[in-house]
């Protein structure tokens, strides 16, 4: 979107996501950009960040250049503090030990609901997607950061199917459904940083990435998106990009 930018869209996602993670947090990360961003934050400003992987890994330190193909292979366990069964690592979410869930998204709607199950009708889908994995549990039980490409077909008024609940129908509907905790915190895209209105729970633009206009965001969003005193993010620094490229030298997740 910007001119002369020296980073890919995925690199921008990883850097911008890493910045909103704090030292000392416990972050439940999915594979891909979330894993990469959490690892990047660990290397930059959050050495005491604890990463959890749904394969059953607590506090690993992923080795540069050896990113795992999913969160369930031995590469995820490098220098971990603890390994535990899948069910038990997911129960840490229910018990409340996790600060942030962090994952990618295929389709999201105005209220932050995510769909990774069906495009089209459930009984006769146009595309059967891979499904929830840990996504439903993570988004049901903790505060969420979602990172995804900003495209009109991905940012829709209402998802075809709620795989991972955001604020459901907005307002208090999430809590009313039996989910009194958690909910969408941020959506990080290659265009902007997005948050949610504390009352209506509608998605809104909080900051634009360098060189991006509000109109561009609106053009690439499938619903009328609000904004709230929009700021501009700082571009990725050389340090952020160089550390990131050491982590993923083959650009498996940042192509």
């Amino acid at each position, binding site marked *: 979107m910007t001119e002369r930018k020296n980073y890919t869209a995925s690199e921008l996602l990883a850097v911008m996501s890493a910045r909103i993670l704090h030292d000392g947090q416990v972050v439940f990360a999915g594979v891909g950009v979330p894993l990469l961003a959490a690892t990047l934050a660990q290397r930059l400003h959050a050495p005491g960040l604890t990463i959890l992987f749904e394969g*059953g890994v607590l506090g690993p330190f992923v080795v540069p250049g050896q990113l795992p193909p*999913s969160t*369930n292979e031995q590469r995820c366990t490098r220098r971990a503090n603890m390994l535990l069964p899948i069910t038990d690592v997911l129960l840490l979410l229910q018990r409340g030990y996790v600060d942030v869930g962090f994952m990618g998204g295929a389709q999201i709607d105005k209220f932050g609901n995510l769909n990774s199950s069906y495009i089209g009708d459930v009984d006769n889908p146009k595309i059967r997607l*891979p499904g929830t994995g840990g996504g*439903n549990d993570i988004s049901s039980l903790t505060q969420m950061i979602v990172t995804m490409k900003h495209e009109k077909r991905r940012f829709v008024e209402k998802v075809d199917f709620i795989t991972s609940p955001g604020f459901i129908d907005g307002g208090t509907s999430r809590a009313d*459904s039996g989910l009194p905790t958690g909910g969408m915190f941020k959506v990080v895209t290659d265009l902007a940083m997005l948050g949610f209105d504390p009352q209506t729970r509608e998605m809104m633009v909080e900051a634009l990435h360098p060189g991006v206009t509000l109109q561009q965001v609106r053009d690439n969003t499938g619903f009328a998106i609000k904004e709230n005193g929009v700021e501009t993010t700082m571009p990725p620094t050389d340090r952020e990009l160089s550390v990131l490229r050491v982590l993923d030298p083959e650009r498996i997740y940042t192509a």
Partner: protein
Amino acid sequence: MVKPYQKLREETTARDRSLREKVMSLEEAASMVHDGDQVALGGCTMSRTPIAMIWALIRAGRKDLTVSRSIVSTEGDLLYASGVSKHIVTSWFSQGIVWGISKVMRHYTESGAAKFEEWSHMSMGLRYRAGAMGVPFMPTRSMLGSGVRDVIGDAVQDMTCPFTGEKLLLLPALNPDVALIHVPRADEYGNAHLDGLQFMDIDIAMAAKRVILTTERIISNDQIRRTPDLTKIPFFTVDAVVEVPFGSAPHECYGLYEPFFPHLDAYAKATTRDPVAGVTDYLDRYYREPKTWADYLSLLGMGEMLDAARRGRSIYND
């Protein structure tokens, strides 16, 4: 859907739970899985997948299995395409995020030829755990308010907690007919170790009516008794022990070998180009034509095996 308690107890009582040798061949073990069985697979995604047992079941022409697993990778494609299963129960199904969405899964599910029943990841685990504990359900605070819960419908129950008044979801226990679990080491009685990631394997073993272990190697019961806190699956839950080196190849077995990446890249490429022809050719070449498990491994190739093993063992290098 939930097995009545007296039936569960009668079935368990009827099992021979004595300390007895139960080593057998892949083919003999495959005969303990019957058409129509509910079969749980151990491991997750590309880790400790019981590939050798799946290989034997496909070769034996087993059919109509309902297969459940935490997360399903390439073995799901092969189960659909071979006709062994038309019904897979899992939280996620595709080869792996770096290879994109499985075109084979899409072909079979979008055409209605096969069913992909979706539960949340933790729900899969809690269903096995309830089965392992001998209770009919496990309460949870997940899946509420989602489409996943809606599609499942009456198979789960809403509940108001009698202690706190909170909304809860009750997940039905899952007690599989058979569990297929691949482990690094087991003794001839079925006492098994697991290294590194355990996934849902302990609960699966405890919940199932029959358990078939494939193991990288068989160790002595004396070894087991020297470090009893390393035993993760107790012998009396196990009905068959099969020694199968590289029994998860081309997937990984913790500390022994990582995935055979070039092989998996080639599989992804072939099935993306043409899902049906790609998977059919793959089944013929790797599952039907080899005469033995060693022949199958030969087809994967010595070079790939050595590289996968080098990477696998490297987890202990630090």
